[in-house]
């Protein structure tokens, strides 16, 4: 799975640390997601989508 997390995060001027805090995960998990090394659960994908102020999960995560 690939993501646009870094793109939307930079648009919102969020640090990885801040996004991690908003999504309730560690910064290491955000790094792994941004590097497409980890497939999140549906719950985490939703939380990150919300934290990035996006409506559709598929805008942030895609195959």
């Amino acid at each position, binding site marked *: 799975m690939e993501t646009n997390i870094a793109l939307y995060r930079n648009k919102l001027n969020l640090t990885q640390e801040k996004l991690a805090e908003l999504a*309730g*995960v*560690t910064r*290491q*998990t955000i790094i*792994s997601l941004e590097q497409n090394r*980890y497939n*999140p*659960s549906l*719950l*985490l994908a939703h939380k990150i989508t919300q934290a990035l102020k996006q409506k559709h999960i598929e805008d942030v995560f895609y195959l």
Partner: protein
Amino acid sequence: MIAKPEWFKRRKYTGWGLTPSTWQGWAYIVVMILPIIVITEMNVIGSTQVVLLSLWAIVFGIDFIAMMVHVPKDERDIIHEAISERNALWAILVVLTAGIGYQIAAGIVVNEITRVDPVILLALIVGTIVKAASNFYLDKKN
């Protein structure tokens, strides 16, 4: 709970448990270990020393376990830990099984079947029960 989970981080590369990640974590370890040294050095009757040490160990143990439960872990940490624990368990099982095999073989050589260490057998039986109970609980839960 005396200790705060944010004072510690999960020990990933050097065994099990937690490692202090802040000065408060190190202070907690020192404060908890200090009474053990003081009690050991105290000039009291042996049995009193054992009771005091046991009581302190229980307090320390309960507090540390409570903290371990509350250390924040995200889903990636949980998956990594589960896979690491499974791999560790397999390694332990291989060693224990090999140990039983060796003990049976050694027992046959000297015509003594009771040479198998009951603790190893108990560990395997308890492990099997815990695995079955965990699977049962998880099946019911989700």
